[in-house]
Protein backbone atom coordinates (compact mmCIF):
# COMPACT_ATOMS: atom_id res chain seq x y z
CA UNK A 1 0.00 0.00 0.00
CA UNK A 2 2.66 2.59 0.87
CA UNK A 3 4.28 1.63 -2.43
CA UNK A 4 1.11 2.45 -4.33
CA UNK A 5 0.83 5.75 -2.56
CA UNK A 6 4.43 6.57 -3.37
CA UNK A 7 3.95 5.73 -7.03
CA UNK A 8 0.86 7.88 -7.09
CA UNK A 9 2.54 10.87 -5.48
CA UNK A 10 5.40 10.57 -7.91
CA UNK A 11 2.94 10.59 -10.82
CA UNK A 12 1.26 13.70 -9.43
CA UNK A 13 4.42 15.68 -10.06
CA UNK A 14 3.97 15.40 -13.82
CA UNK A 15 2.18 18.25 -15.58
CA UNK A 16 0.10 15.95 -17.75
CA UNK A 17 -1.28 14.11 -14.72
CA UNK A 18 -2.22 17.40 -13.02
CA UNK A 19 -3.88 18.57 -16.23
CA UNK A 20 -5.83 15.32 -16.49
CA UNK A 21 -7.21 15.82 -12.98
CA UNK A 22 -8.13 19.47 -13.52
CA UNK A 23 -9.84 18.90 -16.87
CA UNK A 24 -11.48 15.64 -15.79
CA UNK A 25 -13.04 17.11 -12.68
CA UNK A 26 -14.19 20.32 -14.38
CA UNK A 27 -15.75 18.51 -17.34
CA UNK A 28 -17.57 16.05 -15.13
CA UNK A 29 -18.90 18.90 -12.98
CA UNK A 30 -20.40 20.39 -16.15
CA UNK A 31 -21.75 17.04 -17.29
CA UNK A 32 -23.50 16.48 -13.95
CA UNK A 33 -25.12 19.92 -14.15
CA UNK A 34 -26.39 19.02 -17.62
CA UNK A 35 -27.74 15.82 -16.13
CA UNK A 36 -29.84 17.82 -13.71
CA UNK A 37 -31.38 19.63 -16.69
CA UNK A 38 -31.83 16.60 -18.94
CA UNK A 39 -32.89 13.76 -16.64
CA UNK A 40 -35.84 15.70 -15.22
CA UNK A 41 -37.14 16.61 -18.64
CA UNK A 42 -36.92 12.98 -19.75
CA UNK A 43 -34.19 13.87 -22.19
CA UNK A 44 -31.73 11.37 -20.74
CA UNK A 45 -31.05 9.98 -24.20
CA UNK A 46 -30.29 13.35 -25.72
CA UNK A 47 -26.74 13.32 -24.37
CA UNK A 48 -26.13 9.87 -25.78
CA UNK A 49 -27.50 10.84 -29.16
CA UNK A 50 -25.47 14.05 -29.36
CA UNK A 51 -22.28 12.24 -28.54
CA UNK A 52 -22.88 9.96 -31.52
CA UNK A 53 -23.47 13.02 -33.67
CA UNK A 54 -20.16 14.40 -32.44
CA UNK A 55 -18.53 11.10 -33.41
CA UNK A 56 -19.99 11.36 -36.93
CA UNK A 57 -18.84 14.97 -37.19
CA UNK A 58 -15.36 13.96 -36.13
CA UNK A 59 -15.25 11.36 -38.90
CA UNK A 60 -16.28 14.02 -41.43
CA UNK A 61 -13.54 16.31 -40.13
CA UNK A 62 -11.00 13.51 -40.45
CA UNK A 63 -12.17 12.68 -43.98
CA UNK A 64 -11.91 16.32 -45.02
CA UNK A 65 -8.45 16.51 -43.47
CA UNK A 66 -9.29 19.28 -41.05
CA UNK A 67 -6.37 20.06 -38.78
CA UNK A 68 -8.62 20.86 -35.85
CA UNK A 69 -11.60 18.51 -35.56
CA UNK A 70 -13.32 20.79 -33.07
CA UNK A 71 -14.09 23.24 -35.87
CA UNK A 72 -16.46 20.71 -37.41
CA UNK A 73 -17.63 18.89 -34.28
CA UNK A 74 -18.81 21.92 -32.34
CA UNK A 75 -21.07 23.55 -34.96
CA UNK A 76 -22.58 20.26 -36.18
CA UNK A 77 -23.35 19.07 -32.64
CA UNK A 78 -24.78 22.46 -31.65
CA UNK A 79 -27.08 22.48 -34.69
CA UNK A 80 -28.34 18.98 -33.92
CA UNK A 81 -28.91 19.85 -30.27
CA UNK A 82 -30.93 22.94 -31.18
CA UNK A 83 -32.95 20.93 -33.69
CA UNK A 84 -33.69 18.11 -31.25
CA UNK A 85 -34.54 20.31 -28.27
CA UNK A 86 -36.80 22.64 -30.21
CA UNK A 87 -38.52 20.00 -32.30
CA UNK A 88 -41.00 19.25 -29.49
CA UNK A 89 -44.19 20.72 -30.93
CA UNK A 90 -45.39 20.22 -34.47
CA UNK A 91 -42.32 18.21 -35.42
CA UNK A 92 -42.23 16.10 -38.54
CA UNK A 93 -40.81 13.07 -36.75
CA UNK A 94 -41.75 12.34 -33.16
CA UNK A 95 -39.21 13.21 -30.44
CA UNK A 96 -37.75 9.86 -29.37
CA UNK A 97 -37.84 8.45 -32.90
CA UNK A 98 -35.93 11.40 -34.33
CA UNK A 99 -33.39 11.19 -31.52
CA UNK A 100 -32.82 7.48 -32.18
CA UNK A 101 -32.56 8.00 -35.95
CA UNK A 102 -30.02 10.79 -35.71
CA UNK A 103 -28.05 8.90 -33.09
CA UNK A 104 -27.71 5.60 -34.91
CA UNK A 105 -27.41 7.29 -38.29
CA UNK A 106 -24.41 9.39 -37.32
CA UNK A 107 -22.71 6.48 -35.59
CA UNK A 108 -22.99 4.31 -38.70
CA UNK A 109 -22.07 7.04 -41.19
CA UNK A 110 -19.17 8.13 -39.01
CA UNK A 111 -17.69 4.63 -39.01
CA UNK A 112 -18.30 4.31 -42.76
CA UNK A 113 -16.48 7.58 -43.46
CA UNK A 114 -13.58 6.63 -41.23
CA UNK A 115 -13.27 3.34 -43.09
CA UNK A 116 -13.34 4.95 -46.52
CA UNK A 117 -11.03 7.87 -45.91
CA UNK A 118 -8.78 7.05 -42.99
CA UNK A 119 -5.10 7.14 -43.84
CA UNK A 120 -4.04 5.78 -40.50
CA UNK A 121 -2.86 2.24 -40.08
CA UNK A 122 -4.64 1.35 -36.87
CA UNK A 123 -8.25 2.16 -37.78
CA UNK A 124 -10.04 -0.10 -35.31
CA UNK A 125 -7.82 1.22 -32.53
CA UNK A 126 -8.77 4.76 -33.51
CA UNK A 127 -12.48 3.98 -33.55
CA UNK A 128 -12.27 2.13 -30.27
CA UNK A 129 -10.54 4.99 -28.51
CA UNK A 130 -13.05 7.52 -29.85
CA UNK A 131 -15.95 5.42 -28.64
CA UNK A 132 -14.61 4.39 -25.25
CA UNK A 133 -12.16 7.16 -24.52
CA UNK A 134 -8.49 6.62 -24.61
CA UNK A 135 -5.52 7.82 -22.71
CA UNK A 136 -5.97 11.13 -24.53
CA UNK A 137 -6.97 12.67 -21.23
CA UNK A 138 -3.37 12.06 -20.26
CA UNK A 139 -2.01 13.75 -23.37
CA UNK A 140 -3.71 17.12 -23.07
CA UNK A 141 -1.70 20.15 -24.11
CA UNK A 142 -1.82 23.25 -21.92
CA UNK A 143 -3.89 24.91 -24.65
CA UNK A 144 -6.52 22.14 -24.37
CA UNK A 145 -6.48 22.55 -20.61
CA UNK A 146 -7.10 26.30 -20.79
CA UNK A 147 -9.86 25.80 -23.36
CA UNK A 148 -11.62 23.12 -21.28
CA UNK A 149 -11.23 25.10 -18.07
CA UNK A 150 -12.65 28.26 -19.66
CA UNK A 151 -15.62 26.39 -21.05
CA UNK A 152 -16.28 24.68 -17.72
CA UNK A 153 -16.18 27.93 -15.79
CA UNK A 154 -18.63 29.46 -18.29
CA UNK A 155 -21.01 26.51 -17.94
CA UNK A 156 -20.85 26.61 -14.15
CA UNK A 157 -21.48 30.38 -14.14
CA UNK A 158 -24.38 29.89 -16.55
CA UNK A 159 -25.90 27.35 -14.20
CA UNK A 160 -25.43 29.50 -11.09
CA UNK A 161 -26.80 32.61 -12.78
CA UNK A 162 -29.82 30.86 -14.30
CA UNK A 163 -30.38 28.34 -11.49
CA UNK A 164 -33.89 29.56 -10.62
CA UNK A 165 -34.86 30.03 -14.24
CA UNK A 166 -33.71 26.48 -14.98
CA UNK A 167 -35.73 25.15 -12.08
CA UNK A 168 -38.87 27.03 -13.17
CA UNK A 169 -38.61 25.82 -16.77
CA UNK A 170 -37.82 22.17 -16.13
CA UNK A 171 -40.34 21.81 -13.33
CA UNK A 172 -43.24 23.22 -15.34
CA UNK A 173 -42.58 24.59 -18.80
CA UNK A 174 -46.17 25.70 -19.44
CA UNK A 175 -46.35 27.64 -16.21
CA UNK A 176 -43.04 29.32 -17.00
CA UNK A 177 -44.29 30.23 -20.48
CA UNK A 178 -47.54 31.60 -19.09
CA UNK A 179 -45.62 33.80 -16.67
CA UNK A 180 -43.62 35.30 -19.51
CA UNK A 181 -40.40 33.25 -19.79
CA UNK A 182 -39.24 32.92 -23.41
CA UNK A 183 -38.87 29.15 -23.19
CA UNK A 184 -37.89 28.75 -26.86
CA UNK A 185 -34.83 31.02 -26.55
CA UNK A 186 -33.95 29.43 -23.26
CA UNK A 187 -34.02 25.94 -24.80
CA UNK A 188 -31.69 27.11 -27.57
CA UNK A 189 -29.12 28.38 -25.08
CA UNK A 190 -29.37 25.13 -23.11
CA UNK A 191 -28.90 23.15 -26.35
CA UNK A 192 -25.72 25.06 -27.18
CA UNK A 193 -24.30 24.51 -23.70
CA UNK A 194 -25.14 20.79 -23.86
CA UNK A 195 -23.50 20.32 -27.25
CA UNK A 196 -20.34 22.13 -26.18
CA UNK A 197 -19.95 20.10 -23.00
CA UNK A 198 -20.51 16.82 -24.84
CA UNK A 199 -17.88 17.59 -27.45
CA UNK A 200 -15.32 18.31 -24.73
CA UNK A 201 -16.38 15.47 -22.46
CA UNK A 202 -15.91 12.99 -25.32
CA UNK A 203 -12.18 13.35 -24.89
CA UNK A 204 -12.48 12.27 -21.32
CA UNK A 205 -14.59 9.13 -21.56
CA UNK A 206 -15.26 8.64 -25.27
CA UNK A 207 -18.51 9.13 -27.12
CA UNK A 208 -20.26 5.97 -25.96
CA UNK A 209 -19.74 6.76 -22.30
CA UNK A 210 -20.43 10.51 -22.25
CA UNK A 211 -24.05 10.03 -21.27
CA UNK A 212 -22.93 8.07 -18.21
CA UNK A 213 -21.19 11.22 -16.91
CA UNK A 214 -24.40 13.12 -17.52
CA UNK A 215 -26.96 10.71 -16.11
CA UNK A 216 -25.37 8.75 -13.23
CA UNK A 217 -24.59 11.56 -10.75
CA UNK A 218 -28.10 13.04 -11.01
CA UNK A 219 -29.88 9.71 -10.69
CA UNK A 220 -27.67 8.73 -7.74
CA UNK A 221 -28.28 12.06 -6.01
CA UNK A 222 -32.04 11.65 -6.49
CA UNK A 223 -31.87 8.49 -4.38
CA UNK A 224 -30.52 10.46 -1.43
CA UNK A 225 -31.97 13.99 -1.61
CA UNK A 226 -35.48 15.24 -2.27
CA UNK A 227 -34.93 18.96 -2.80
CA UNK A 228 -33.76 20.34 -6.12
CA UNK A 229 -30.90 22.18 -4.47
CA UNK A 230 -29.83 19.07 -2.57
CA UNK A 231 -29.88 16.91 -5.69
CA UNK A 232 -27.94 19.48 -7.73
CA UNK A 233 -25.20 20.02 -5.15
CA UNK A 234 -24.84 16.33 -4.35
CA UNK A 235 -24.73 15.37 -8.04
CA UNK A 236 -21.86 17.82 -8.57
CA UNK A 237 -20.04 16.47 -5.54
CA UNK A 238 -20.52 12.82 -6.56
CA UNK A 239 -19.41 13.55 -10.08
CA UNK A 240 -16.17 15.21 -8.99
CA UNK A 241 -15.50 12.38 -6.55
CA UNK A 242 -16.12 9.60 -9.08
CA UNK A 243 -13.93 11.20 -11.73
CA UNK A 244 -11.05 11.74 -9.31
CA UNK A 245 -11.35 8.19 -8.04
CA UNK A 246 -11.61 6.85 -11.60
CA UNK A 247 -8.49 8.65 -12.79
CA UNK A 248 -6.51 7.56 -9.70
CA UNK A 249 -7.43 3.91 -10.22
CA UNK A 250 -6.81 4.14 -13.95
CA UNK A 251 -3.31 5.53 -13.40
CA UNK A 252 -2.39 3.01 -10.71
CA UNK A 253 -3.96 -0.07 -12.30
CA UNK A 254 -3.46 0.89 -15.93
CA UNK A 255 -7.13 0.51 -16.77
CA UNK A 256 -8.89 2.60 -19.48
CA UNK A 257 -9.71 6.00 -17.98
CA UNK A 258 -13.26 6.36 -19.38
CA UNK A 259 -14.53 2.95 -18.36
CA UNK A 260 -12.98 3.24 -14.91
CA UNK A 261 -14.72 6.57 -14.26
CA UNK A 262 -18.05 5.11 -15.37
CA UNK A 263 -17.36 2.08 -13.16
CA UNK A 264 -16.89 4.37 -10.15
CA UNK A 265 -20.20 6.05 -11.02
CA UNK A 266 -21.98 2.70 -11.13
CA UNK A 267 -20.64 1.68 -7.71
CA UNK A 268 -21.71 5.02 -6.22
CA UNK A 269 -25.15 4.63 -7.78
CA UNK A 270 -25.52 1.19 -6.16
CA UNK A 271 -24.42 2.60 -2.79
CA UNK A 272 -26.97 5.42 -3.09
CA UNK A 273 -29.70 2.90 -3.94
CA UNK A 274 -28.81 0.83 -0.87
CA UNK A 275 -28.88 4.02 1.22
CA UNK A 276 -32.44 4.71 0.07
CA UNK A 277 -33.56 1.17 0.91
CA UNK A 278 -32.05 1.36 4.39
CA UNK A 279 -33.47 4.80 5.05
Amino acid sequence: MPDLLETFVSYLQYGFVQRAFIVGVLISLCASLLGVMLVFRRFSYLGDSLSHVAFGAMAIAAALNFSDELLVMLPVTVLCAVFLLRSGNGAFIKGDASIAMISVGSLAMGYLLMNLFSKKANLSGDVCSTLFGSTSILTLSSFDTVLCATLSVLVILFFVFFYHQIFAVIFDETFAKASGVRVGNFNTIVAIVIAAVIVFAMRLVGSLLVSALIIFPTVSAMRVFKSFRGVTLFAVLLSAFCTTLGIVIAILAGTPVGSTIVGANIVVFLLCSVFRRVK
Partner: protein
Amino acid sequence: MIFEAENLVVGYHKKPVTMEMNFSVAAGDFLCIVGTNGAGKSTLLKTLLGLERPVSGDIRFQVSRKEIGYLPQQNRISKNFPATAFEIVLSGRNSHRGWKPFYSAKDKSIALQNMERLNIREHADQCLRELSGGLQQRVLLARALSAGDKLLFLDEPVASLDPEATADFYKLLKTLNETGLTIVMVTHDVQDGLEYASKVLRVGRPNFFGSLEEYRARFA
Protein backbone atom coordinates in the same frame (compact mmCIF):
# COMPACT_ATOMS: atom_id res chain seq x y z
CA MET B 1 -62.92 45.38 -15.10
CA ILE B 2 -60.22 42.71 -15.08
CA PHE B 3 -60.41 41.64 -18.73
CA GLU B 4 -62.88 41.37 -21.58
CA ALA B 5 -63.05 39.32 -24.76
CA GLU B 6 -64.69 40.72 -27.87
CA ASN B 7 -65.71 38.53 -30.83
CA LEU B 8 -63.07 36.09 -29.67
CA VAL B 9 -62.50 32.90 -31.68
CA VAL B 10 -59.85 30.47 -30.43
CA GLY B 11 -58.19 27.48 -32.08
CA TYR B 12 -54.89 25.91 -33.08
CA HIS B 13 -52.70 27.03 -35.96
CA LYS B 14 -55.34 29.54 -37.16
CA LYS B 15 -57.97 26.80 -37.37
CA PRO B 16 -60.98 27.92 -35.33
CA VAL B 17 -62.33 25.55 -32.68
CA THR B 18 -65.02 27.79 -31.20
CA MET B 19 -67.61 30.25 -32.44
CA GLU B 20 -67.33 33.95 -31.58
CA MET B 21 -67.47 34.67 -27.88
CA ASN B 22 -68.11 37.88 -25.98
CA PHE B 23 -67.57 37.95 -22.24
CA SER B 24 -66.04 40.02 -19.51
CA VAL B 25 -64.69 39.46 -16.02
CA ALA B 26 -64.94 42.12 -13.31
CA ALA B 27 -62.95 42.32 -10.07
CA GLY B 28 -64.23 39.76 -7.57
CA ASP B 29 -65.95 37.59 -10.18
CA PHE B 30 -65.87 33.79 -10.05
CA LEU B 31 -66.21 32.69 -13.68
CA CYS B 32 -66.66 29.04 -14.55
CA ILE B 33 -65.92 27.92 -18.09
CA VAL B 34 -67.88 24.79 -19.01
CA GLY B 35 -68.51 22.81 -22.18
CA THR B 36 -68.25 19.31 -23.61
CA ASN B 37 -64.95 17.61 -24.37
CA GLY B 38 -63.30 19.09 -27.44
CA ALA B 39 -65.48 22.21 -27.34
CA GLY B 40 -62.37 24.34 -26.85
CA LYS B 41 -62.29 25.05 -23.08
CA SER B 42 -58.58 24.31 -22.73
CA THR B 43 -57.74 26.15 -25.94
CA LEU B 44 -59.61 29.17 -24.62
CA LEU B 45 -57.64 29.03 -21.37
CA LYS B 46 -54.33 28.75 -23.25
CA THR B 47 -55.31 31.74 -25.34
CA LEU B 48 -56.22 33.77 -22.25
CA LEU B 49 -52.82 32.84 -20.75
CA GLY B 50 -51.03 33.99 -23.90
CA LEU B 51 -49.83 30.50 -24.87
CA GLU B 52 -51.88 30.52 -28.10
CA ARG B 53 -52.85 33.41 -30.34
CA PRO B 54 -56.55 34.17 -30.88
CA VAL B 55 -57.76 33.15 -34.35
CA SER B 56 -59.72 36.38 -34.44
CA GLY B 57 -61.15 38.94 -32.03
CA ASP B 58 -59.57 40.71 -29.06
CA ILE B 59 -58.78 40.13 -25.43
CA ARG B 60 -58.16 43.28 -23.41
CA PHE B 61 -56.51 42.91 -20.01
CA GLN B 62 -56.63 45.60 -17.36
CA VAL B 63 -54.21 43.68 -15.13
CA SER B 64 -50.57 43.00 -15.88
CA ARG B 65 -49.12 39.55 -16.44
CA LYS B 66 -47.44 39.79 -13.04
CA GLU B 67 -50.82 39.93 -11.33
CA ILE B 68 -52.03 36.68 -12.86
CA GLY B 69 -51.64 33.24 -11.28
CA TYR B 70 -52.23 29.91 -12.99
CA LEU B 71 -52.97 26.42 -11.72
CA PRO B 72 -52.33 23.88 -14.51
CA GLN B 73 -53.92 20.46 -14.82
CA GLN B 74 -52.28 18.33 -12.20
CA ASN B 75 -51.44 15.33 -14.35
CA ARG B 76 -48.94 17.49 -16.20
CA ILE B 77 -46.70 17.84 -13.15
CA SER B 78 -44.15 15.09 -12.60
CA LYS B 79 -44.60 13.72 -9.09
CA ASN B 80 -41.09 12.30 -8.95
CA PHE B 81 -39.40 15.60 -9.54
CA PRO B 82 -37.11 16.21 -6.58
CA ALA B 83 -38.32 19.56 -5.30
CA THR B 84 -39.60 20.65 -1.91
CA ALA B 85 -42.95 22.37 -1.55
CA PHE B 86 -41.14 25.60 -0.69
CA GLU B 87 -38.94 25.43 -3.79
CA ILE B 88 -42.04 24.96 -5.93
CA VAL B 89 -43.99 27.80 -4.33
CA LEU B 90 -40.98 30.10 -4.56
CA SER B 91 -40.65 29.36 -8.29
CA GLY B 92 -43.95 31.23 -8.70
CA ARG B 93 -41.91 34.39 -8.06
CA ASN B 94 -39.71 33.68 -11.08
CA SER B 95 -41.28 36.37 -13.27
CA HIS B 96 -40.86 38.94 -10.48
CA ARG B 97 -37.16 38.20 -10.05
CA GLY B 98 -36.03 40.25 -13.05
CA TRP B 99 -32.33 39.93 -13.88
CA LYS B 100 -31.21 39.12 -10.35
CA PRO B 101 -29.92 35.54 -10.17
CA PHE B 102 -31.45 34.96 -6.72
CA TYR B 103 -34.78 35.55 -5.01
CA SER B 104 -35.03 38.53 -2.67
CA ALA B 105 -36.11 38.33 0.96
CA LYS B 106 -39.43 39.80 -0.19
CA ASP B 107 -39.95 36.97 -2.70
CA LYS B 108 -39.28 34.40 0.02
CA SER B 109 -41.61 36.04 2.50
CA ILE B 110 -44.40 36.24 -0.11
CA ALA B 111 -43.96 32.53 -0.82
CA LEU B 112 -44.09 31.71 2.90
CA GLN B 113 -47.13 33.93 3.44
CA ASN B 114 -49.01 32.12 0.71
CA MET B 115 -48.09 28.76 2.22
CA GLU B 116 -49.34 30.05 5.56
CA ARG B 117 -52.55 31.26 3.94
CA LEU B 118 -53.23 27.80 2.51
CA ASN B 119 -52.16 25.96 5.68
CA ILE B 120 -49.21 24.14 4.15
CA ARG B 121 -46.37 25.94 5.93
CA GLU B 122 -45.55 22.79 7.91
CA HIS B 123 -45.02 20.85 4.66
CA ALA B 124 -42.46 23.30 3.29
CA ASP B 125 -39.60 20.78 3.32
CA GLN B 126 -41.51 17.80 1.94
CA CYS B 127 -41.54 16.90 -1.73
CA LEU B 128 -44.68 16.44 -3.82
CA ARG B 129 -44.85 12.66 -3.79
CA GLU B 130 -44.90 12.65 0.00
CA LEU B 131 -48.07 14.74 0.06
CA SER B 132 -51.72 13.78 -0.52
CA GLY B 133 -53.49 14.90 -3.70
CA GLY B 134 -55.25 17.71 -1.88
CA LEU B 135 -52.03 19.02 -0.36
CA GLN B 136 -50.23 18.81 -3.73
CA GLN B 137 -52.97 20.96 -5.20
CA ARG B 138 -52.51 23.48 -2.38
CA VAL B 139 -48.78 23.66 -3.10
CA LEU B 140 -49.45 24.46 -6.76
CA LEU B 141 -52.14 26.93 -5.73
CA ALA B 142 -49.66 28.68 -3.43
CA ARG B 143 -47.24 28.88 -6.36
CA ALA B 144 -49.99 30.44 -8.51
CA LEU B 145 -50.80 33.01 -5.83
CA SER B 146 -47.10 33.85 -5.48
CA ALA B 147 -46.95 34.54 -9.21
CA GLY B 148 -49.96 36.86 -9.13
CA ASP B 149 -52.73 37.42 -6.61
CA LYS B 150 -55.32 39.47 -8.51
CA LEU B 151 -56.53 37.00 -11.12
CA LEU B 152 -56.32 33.22 -10.90
CA PHE B 153 -56.80 30.80 -13.81
CA LEU B 154 -57.53 27.16 -12.94
CA ASP B 155 -57.63 24.23 -15.36
CA GLU B 156 -59.77 21.32 -14.15
CA PRO B 157 -58.42 21.67 -10.60
CA VAL B 158 -60.38 18.81 -9.02
CA ALA B 159 -59.97 16.22 -11.79
CA SER B 160 -57.53 14.12 -9.75
CA LEU B 161 -58.97 14.72 -6.28
CA ASP B 162 -61.22 12.44 -4.22
CA PRO B 163 -64.67 13.78 -3.19
CA GLU B 164 -63.51 14.93 0.24
CA ALA B 165 -60.48 16.80 -1.10
CA THR B 166 -62.69 18.26 -3.84
CA ALA B 167 -65.16 19.74 -1.37
CA ASP B 168 -62.24 21.04 0.66
CA PHE B 169 -60.65 22.65 -2.39
CA TYR B 170 -63.88 24.40 -3.44
CA LYS B 171 -64.27 25.82 0.07
CA LEU B 172 -60.73 27.15 -0.16
CA LEU B 173 -61.46 28.80 -3.52
CA LYS B 174 -64.61 30.37 -2.07
CA THR B 175 -62.61 31.89 0.79
CA LEU B 176 -59.99 33.23 -1.62
CA ASN B 177 -62.72 34.67 -3.84
CA GLU B 178 -64.35 36.38 -0.87
CA THR B 179 -61.06 38.00 0.08
CA GLY B 180 -60.87 39.71 -3.32
CA LEU B 181 -59.29 37.22 -5.70
CA THR B 182 -60.86 37.07 -9.16
CA ILE B 183 -61.19 33.46 -10.34
CA VAL B 184 -61.56 31.92 -13.79
CA MET B 185 -61.97 28.14 -13.63
CA VAL B 186 -62.28 25.62 -16.44
CA THR B 187 -64.29 22.69 -15.09
CA HIS B 188 -66.01 19.46 -15.99
CA ASP B 189 -67.82 19.36 -12.71
CA VAL B 190 -71.16 21.06 -13.47
CA GLN B 191 -72.63 19.59 -10.27
CA ASP B 192 -70.57 21.05 -7.44
CA GLY B 193 -68.10 23.16 -9.40
CA LEU B 194 -70.68 25.78 -10.31
CA GLU B 195 -71.93 26.24 -6.77
CA TYR B 196 -69.74 29.24 -6.00
CA ALA B 197 -69.66 30.67 -9.52
CA SER B 198 -70.97 34.17 -10.09
CA LYS B 199 -70.81 33.87 -13.86
CA VAL B 200 -70.76 30.99 -16.32
CA LEU B 201 -69.27 30.82 -19.80
CA ARG B 202 -70.40 27.86 -21.86
CA VAL B 203 -68.15 27.07 -24.79
CA GLY B 204 -69.91 25.13 -27.55
CA ARG B 205 -72.99 25.35 -29.68
CA PRO B 206 -74.70 27.44 -28.55
CA ASN B 207 -72.25 29.66 -26.65
CA PHE B 208 -73.57 31.18 -23.48
CA PHE B 209 -72.35 33.84 -21.11
CA GLY B 210 -74.31 35.08 -18.13
CA SER B 211 -75.04 34.65 -14.44
CA LEU B 212 -75.29 31.25 -12.77
CA GLU B 213 -79.09 31.61 -12.43
CA GLU B 214 -79.51 32.32 -16.14
CA TYR B 215 -77.29 29.36 -17.00
CA ARG B 216 -79.24 27.00 -14.77
CA ALA B 217 -82.56 28.24 -16.18
CA ARG B 218 -81.40 27.49 -19.72
CA PHE B 219 -79.27 24.38 -19.46
CA ALA B 220 -80.15 22.51 -16.27
